[in-house]
């Protein structure tokens, strides 16, 4: 697995063989693979579901001006969702590691208790962070609740941190030195973006304008839900979430303000979850 491209291909191939539909990333600013409607909505719907996709994930507070070798404004997650979870899911996961070059016998792979919660999504789950030789490379979660709704059939979510895994595979100390392919390095494609995004999020972002932008998006989202427009409504929740993250990064929020903003994002997400559960009419099947 000498390039990031091939790592992604290998994981996609592996999970496609396990019956997953390989999806494109959601085309919006998103904080984590879980927030993509491809996860959020389909774990709430009844039919069995197996999917995987690479989701670029933006964390404005983690922006480091392209200077920190390990932390970035935007990283990439390989998200795998299986519902219901197969009984041998841990073995399947371990095999996926072998498929990308980590034979279990050679490495110390440990499942360390780490119950995951995403308050913005009203979601939580039981699970582990997976340590590979001390390095946290995957979040492994059995969803118990999403959008404040208890899941009758818990889905399993496996989230691989692609840059981190690649750094280990390519033996690089900085993610900017990673080979995307033979010719291009991570820094060639992403460094400039990182510098500018960091500068924006930490210094130049205008809290006042962003605050009104947040309010506008929130209200637009509310309007959507009033009109039973669940998908657009949820997308406004995603927009709010991203604006909130920038406000947070620029240091415009206090502990309690954070709670208040999070509460508003959560209320939109809950509306979306309730609505999707209320309106679903079966359909969709990639199982058989």
């Amino acid at each position, binding site marked *: 697995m000498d390039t990031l491209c091939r790592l992604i291909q290998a994981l996609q191939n592996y999970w496609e063989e396990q019956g997953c539909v390989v999806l494109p990333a959601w085309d919006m600013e998103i904080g984590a693979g879980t927030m993509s409607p491809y996860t959020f909505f389909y774990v709430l719907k009844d039919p069995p579901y197996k999917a995987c996709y690479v989701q670029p994930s933006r964390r404005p507070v983690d922006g480091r001006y392209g200077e920190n070798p*390990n932390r970035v404004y935007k990283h990439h997650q390989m998200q795998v969702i299986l519902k219901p979870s197969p009984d041998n899911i841990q073995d399947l996961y371990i095999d996926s590691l072998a498929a990308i070059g980590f034979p279990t016998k050679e490495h*110390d*792979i440990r499942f360390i208790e780490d119950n995951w919660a995403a308050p913005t999504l009203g979601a939580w789950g039981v699970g582990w962070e997976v340590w590979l030789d*001390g390095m946290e490379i995957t979040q492994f979660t059995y969803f118990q609740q999403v959008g404040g709704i208890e899941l009758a059939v*818990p889905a399993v979510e496996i989230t691989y941190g692609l840059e981190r895994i690649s750094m280990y595979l390519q033996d690089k100390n900085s993610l900017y030195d990673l080979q995307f392919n033979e010719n291009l390095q991570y820094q060639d494609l992403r460094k400039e973006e990182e510098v500018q995004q960091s500068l924006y999020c930490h210094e130049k972002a205008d809290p006042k304008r962003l605050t009104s932008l947040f309010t506008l998006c929130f209200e637009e989202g509310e309007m959507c839900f009033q009109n039973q427009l669940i998908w657009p409504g949820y997308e406004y929740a995603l927009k709010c979430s991203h604006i909130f993250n920038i406000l947070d990064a620029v240091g415009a929020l206090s502990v309690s303000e954070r709670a208040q903003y999070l509460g508003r994002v959560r209320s939109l997400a809950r509306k979306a979850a309730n609505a999707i559960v209320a309106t679903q009419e079966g359909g969709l099947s990639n199982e058989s």
Partner: protein
Amino acid sequence: MNRDFVIEIGLEELPSAAMKQLLEEMPKAFCAWLQEHSIVHDESFFFVTPRRMVFYASKVEPHQKIVPQKTKGPPASVAFKNQKETPALLGFLKKCGADTYETETWNGQDYIFCTVQPPCKKIEDVVKNHFSSWLQAFPFSSQMNCHSYNFVRPVRWICSLYGDSILPLTLFSVKSSSLSLGLRGFPAIPIQSAEEYCATVREHNIMLDTSERIEAIQTHVSTKTPLSIIEKNALCTEWPIVSKAGFSGGLLEVPKEAIKTMIEDHLICFTLQDETGALLPSFQFVMNGPRNEKNVAMGYEKVIAAKLEDAKFFYEQDQKVPLKDRSDHIQRMIFMKGLGTVLQKTNRLISLARQFPCEVDVHLLERAAFLSKMDLSTHMVQELPELQGTMGRIYGSLQGEDQCVCNALETYYFPAREADPVPNDDMGRILGILDRIDTLAGAFAIGTSVTSSADPLGLRRQMNGLFRILLDRPFSLDLHEAFSQALLCYQQENSLEVQTDTVLQKLAKFYTLRLTLFLQSIHRYDLVNAALCLPWIHPFSAKEKIVLLEKESLNPELKTLCESFTRIRNITKGEYSCTPVQEELLAEPQEMALYEALEKNSSDEYAPIESGDLVIQLKKMYSLNPFIVDFFDFVLVNCEDIGIKDNRLRLLSAINRYFLRFCDFSKIVFQGGN
């Protein structure tokens, strides 16, 4: 022949809290289960590793051993007619499944008895029918929805044997076999017999006994290593192997506290120190089973280097802006919704510090208050919030702040948790008191309420911290005054509109409730109730009184005093008049005497007794005992002359008000009734 039995339940990795609970409760519960089902055995064991629970019993008899029970049948007179067995007797025997019987006298009459042997089932059947339901009902501290069932974690395999045959068992549709699983990546382990189970899994690198795993780590790490980190490792490995790796010496520039937090708390590895206690650029980690040690070490080295590089970067960046120049930074941080910025909090602390009744250097105290929140804006604290205060001390020292100030910047957070010590320096104590009073006052000023289930701002913890500091070092703090000042600061600094009286009332109620619970966890509840009869009692003074009352509780004088107090309270209906006694209306010699004794005892000032020699105060109160007894023996309070009657009530009121300065004596409970 008696054989051992083993039931191994294979699971996805258990949470450590569940493992601790199992270690504590399961051995007993398992023992009780064996007994309940009359399974005769020699010894029983229970083991837990992250991936398995193991129930083991040795030398188990093949069948249950249930003691035969004697059952009473019909009276002999009914059982036989003409010396022949009657249908009643035959029916009874049939019901009991018995052929023989005996006659015994019971209550003076002869009855038929027969000995019934309840069926003793085979051990296989007992396990099959009763084990799973019992285990499912175990009250695990955490459970999850595993799709078709709820359990601590999903069950993945069961290996169960009695001797060399499989014990058939089904748990959530997982069926038992004679196969166990070893470490991940290693093949399944066939188990020949229950007796060989422990040795066989051991050959495959499964160390069943948790204390053995702890020891295996302990023997390879320094004796100074905190046990908690060793335990954490023992609870997430099945075959711990301690190994060593390093990092670049240049990274030791990062403060020791940050390095320790990252290596020990975040990565559950072990830091290494030289003889002087200085950190070495190396550390130990634990592997789960034999792996490629070079690979694993390389992984850990990468992780730790990355984390320490990060910390070093933060450390360097943070020093570019000294603490004292960070007002702008904390101005952008909100302290609490509705209560302004962290900078405003700092300003309030400074004004409170100026007014604090204490002999520490007020300029230094103000300096400490000024700097107290600055480190919250540093990268290091934002990354490692557990280092708040610690980084204040470290950066403060580097930037030439006074050493007292630097220490206080760290210690004023103590005690953050119940187990923590209180600050050991006055500066830290005072800052800690002011910080907590400010937070509590502010939270109540904006109407925050604390319920038994909801305390989002941790106000109970703040209040308890305040008590602990004041118990350790009382200063001469008037708490009513201190909270009033704190509220005033919010009005001045934040232009917050505060309904001072209402807020103070609510605060006083919360204060007394928390102090009551706090002291009752240590002292007699009735004495605590007695001592906390007024609002804003200083914890130290309350404690002193309680301790004294504990010592006095067998003294008859105290009991007499309490009886008088209660009697007066009943006569006055608890409404103590404040009108002075009119001497000219005192008619009887006993009331004159009582009045004079009271006048002699009590100074004019009717302030609560908060200091001074409590023993002397209490003795002085005892000295009124004979006068009060005389008074009640000879004087009629409710006499016809209203003027005289009111005057007597005023006298009694004065006495109870005087007593109340010490405590509410009616709350004290005497054994055998008051």
